[in-house]
């Protein structure tokens, strides 16, 4: 909502600046001059938005537009229901949908285009709009929609088409075994927390009575009643929710791996047995109040940690986000719409201009340019002709082609990258947290100390000696120690998220503590990530005319110099948005031509321009300067004369050089891995002050993975990147960082996602790691000191129930407060850039909308 406001404001401003500009009533984008209607107060940017507005109005859901200045999602084209016919196919439904109890069917979709709660409201009103839809339930935090429909009353495709007409894109999701397991596990853990909490709370009340009775004297009958009830509650807690510690300790024993649960289980068992015996005996300490609270607190720590891990596992099925849902299969010479999942090797498909290629294959007919950025990271599209190979997920920019399918789904190149990501994530050795490593030594030390206590006190009677040893085992139980790490990590992650640094696993902070090497990807990391108009030689009026023509093309270079691009470049100076271009056509050799006011304009590269026009020395110089700066010159010609040269490129971020110097000062080595041409990469690296020995150009996604695997494993290898092509490398590196504006796959592959552009957040991430690790060390030291003190007191025989009951919560409290009070960032938050956030702190950034918002 707030994120949309700046845009709306800009639109309003520009509306004042020029009366010919207005804002689409549905999506809030600019309305092109051609669509502006004077007779109505509602204008639309495209036919799709107009239809969506109509639909919403007809269903009486106008309230959608009144909610917090909501704007809908731009629709674009007009949608025909037939496009979604394959949603009704039995193959598709067998794969994704399940039967419901009441004769209806259910399916789960991942949904794109959700801005705010108004969208949720609109979508959940679907049963009102579409007969036969029984229920539509959204989960906003992970952008999924559960749809229940009655197959006898409506087709699924109609509901999907309706949602698409409103601007929302759907992709079917399998509700798989893993998701079910996670839901069950979360619920089990919550249940354990509830039982342990209730038992601990009641036990503390009873303990209060017992302590007061201890001071003021209590009748034996009441006392033993309270002791028996306390014993009962304690056993409920130990044998119910507390069982996890015994099970995990038993596992650790069997696998011979040290674990923090070992000393915990030892303390719990000793306390439980000792307490039970003392209850029956009717004298001596019962420890059940301390044990109950111990179990509860430990479970809280465990739950926090589990939620963190869930978030990283929440990554939606990578492959299904990437490849298009739809394919046009040619059967007996006639193109038929089908579902991309249903394609087989040997099928022949047609791919029109502007469509994603549904599967790997070979071009049978036609030639075109294809945007392969998803695989190579290179922003400039490549030419392909008959016989050349194309990959699934890449974008066909030029003209229609016919492709013979050679690999589908997981076997395609994109599928293999997705699998590589999954593999790398599974292969990665988990680092054993320090607290767990010392678990084994801890338990040995405690047992030795307990035996020593028995030996020391043996002379005063064996009962007394055993009693003291049990007291020692309980006070030595490392509650604070076990909470120290998860708590500090959880707080670190939460504070990182507030600054737009989303970390999926706490390990990251531990790994980043040791300086190693930071590998940067070029595109989108040290550069802005998209083609922009950087320079223009010539008169501005020609630039506006060129922009009007480029508006008709979806080529990345055309996007850089269409009306929006020119607006950004000129900063709204002298807007000439009313120009209407006609007869626009793309030419085979990468140019574009069109007519404005009857005069023909040509836009293209040098050869293209030279064919039709001659040019002045001024433009020759401008073109040479552009090439020198690593930019692409684009020539604009009219009536046999070049009238301007635009320089288009992906500019380097201005702050990159100083930030890289800063990394080096912190002890990190900085390198660069890029898919771009080695010469280009080397020049940029030199400009940024990166050691040429650590610069690699021309790397394919697989090369990056192999390269990172070769690096010494004892050093931290940080990979920073944005594209699908980086995703496998992000997963292989010890720490993968996906940067702002990156593709969905890279966000899922990397354990860290930065919601702000530039390299500054990486510095903050390092800072966060350093501070969090310091907090953890402080926590561990403090809790160790408490344990040591308690052990000494117990051995000396001067521990009484009150001291034990006081020591334990104090040590836990110290750990909790030190985790909260210590700053996570060295720099104040004043210099941070504003985040795209709505009023509840949830991110509404387009890119992160799909990311689970757990914090």
């Amino acid at each position: 909502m707030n994120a949309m406001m700046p845009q709306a404001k800009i639109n309003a401003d520009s509306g004042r600046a020029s009366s010919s500009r207005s804002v689409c009533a549905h999506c809030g984008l600019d309305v092109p001059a051609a669509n502006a209607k004077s007779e109505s107060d509602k204008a639309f940017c495209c036919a799709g938005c107009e239809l969506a507005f109509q639909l919403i109005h007809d269903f009486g859901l106008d309230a959608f537009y009144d909610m917090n200045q909501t704007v809908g999602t731009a629709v674009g084209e007009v949608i025909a229901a037939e496009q979604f016919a394959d949603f009704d196919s039995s193959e598709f439904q067998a794969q994704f949908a399940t039967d419901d109890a009441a004769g209806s069917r259910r399916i789960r979709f991942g949904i794109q285009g959700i801005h705010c709660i108004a969208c949720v409201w609109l979508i959940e009103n679907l049963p009102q709009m579409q007969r036969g839809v029984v229920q539509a339930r959204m989960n906003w935090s992970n952008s999924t929609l559960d749809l229940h429909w009655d197959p006898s009353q409506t087709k699924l495709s109609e509901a999907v088409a309706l949602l698409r007409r409103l601007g929302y894109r759907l992709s079917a999701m399998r509700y798989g075994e893993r998701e079910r397991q996670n839901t069950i596990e979360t619920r089990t853990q919550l249940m354990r927390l509830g039982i342990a909490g209730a038992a601990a709370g009641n036990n503390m009340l009873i303990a209060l009575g017992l302590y007061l009775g201890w001071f003021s004297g209590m009748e034996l009958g009441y006392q033993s009643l309270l002791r028996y009830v306390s014993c009962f509650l304690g056993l409920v807690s130990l044998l119910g929710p507390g069982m996890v510690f015994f099970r995990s300790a038993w596992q650790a024993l069997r696998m011979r791996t040290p674990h923090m649960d070992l000393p915990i289980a030892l303390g719990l068992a000793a306390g439980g047995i000792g307490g039970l015996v003392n209850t029956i005996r009717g004298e001596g300490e019962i420890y059940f109040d301390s044990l109950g609270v111990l179990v509860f607190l430990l479970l809280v720590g465990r739950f926090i940690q589990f939620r963190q891990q869930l978030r990283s596992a929440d990554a939606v099925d990578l492959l299904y986000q990437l490849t298009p849902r739809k394919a046009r299969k040619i059967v007996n010479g006639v193109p038929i719409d089908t579902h991309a999942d249903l394609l087989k090797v040997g099928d022949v498909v047609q791919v029109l201009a502007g469509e994603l290629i549904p599967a790997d294959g070979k071009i049978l007919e036609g030639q075109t340019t294809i945007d392969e950025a998803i695989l190579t990271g290179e922003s400039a599209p490549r030419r392909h002709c008959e016989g050349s190979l194309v990959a699934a997920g890449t974008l066909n920019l030029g003209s229609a082609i016919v492709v013979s399918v050679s690999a589908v789904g997981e076997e395609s190149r994109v599928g293999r990258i997705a699998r590589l990501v999954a593999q790398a994530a599974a292969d990665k050795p988990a680092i054993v947290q320090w607290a767990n490593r010392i678990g084994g030594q801890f338990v040995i030390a405690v047992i030795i100390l307990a035996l020593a206590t028995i030996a020391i006190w043996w002379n005063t009677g064996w009962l007394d000696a055993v009693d003291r040893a049990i007291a020692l085992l309980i006070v030595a139980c490392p509650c604070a120690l076990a909470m120290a790490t998860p708590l500090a990590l959880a707080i670190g992650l939460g504070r990182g998220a507030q600054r737009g640094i989303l970390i999926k696993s706490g390990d990251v902070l531990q790994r980043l503590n040791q300086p190693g090497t930071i590998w940067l990807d070029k595109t989108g990391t040290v550069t802005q990530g998209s083609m922009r108009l950087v320079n223009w030689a010539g008169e501005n009026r020609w630039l506006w005319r060129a922009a009007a023509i480029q508006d008709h093309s979806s080529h990345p270079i055309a996007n850089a110099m269409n009306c929006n691009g020119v607006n950004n470049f000129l900063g709204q100076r002298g807007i000439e948005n009313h120009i209407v271009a006609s007869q626009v056509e793309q030419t085979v050799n990468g140019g574009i031509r069109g007519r404005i006011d009857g005069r023909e304009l040509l836009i293209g590269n040098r050869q293209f321009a030279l064919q039709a026009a001659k040019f002045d020395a001024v433009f020759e110089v401008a073109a040479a300067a552009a090439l020198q700066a690593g930019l692409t010159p684009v020539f604009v010609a009219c009536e046999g004369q070049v009238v301007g040269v635009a320089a288009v490129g992906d500019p380097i971020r201005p702050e990159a050089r100083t930030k890289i110097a800063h990394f080096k000062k912190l002890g990190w080595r900085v390198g660069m891995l890029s898919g771009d041409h080695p010469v280009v990469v080397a020049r940029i690296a030199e400009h940024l002050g990166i050691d040429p020995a650590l610069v690699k150009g021309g790397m394919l996604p697989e090369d990056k993975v192999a390269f990172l695997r070769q690096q010494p494993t004892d050093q931290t290898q940080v990979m920073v990147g944005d594209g699908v092509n980086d995703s496998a490398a992000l997963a292989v590196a010890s720490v993968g960082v996906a940067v702002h504006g990156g593709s969905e796959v890279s966000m899922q592959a990397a354990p860290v996602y930065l919601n702000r552009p530039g390299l500054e957040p990486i510095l903050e991430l390092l800072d966060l790691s350093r501070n969090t690790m310091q907090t953890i060390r402080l926590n561990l030291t403090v809790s160790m000191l408490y344990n040591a003190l308690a052990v000494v007191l117990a051995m000396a025989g001067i521990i009484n129930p009150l001291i034990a009951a006081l020591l334990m919560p104090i040590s836990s409290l110290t750990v909790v407060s030190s985790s909260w009070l210590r700053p996570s960032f060295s720099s104040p938050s004043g210099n941070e850039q504003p985040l795209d956030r709505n009023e509840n702190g949830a991110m509404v950034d387009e890119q992160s909308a799909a990311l689970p918002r757990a914090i």
Partner: protein
Amino acid sequence: MSVIYVALPIALGLSLAAVIAFALSVRSGQFDDLETPQRRMLHDDIPKRK
């Protein structure tokens, strides 16, 4: 003081009831999504066309 023989079981019964209520609500999935419902209710009152 002997009222405790009655009060204590009642107190334990009450907390047992609370635990059961909690368990039922967890099992029915009320804690699965903590974000959408709190916002969904903001727009519950918007009149819909009949």
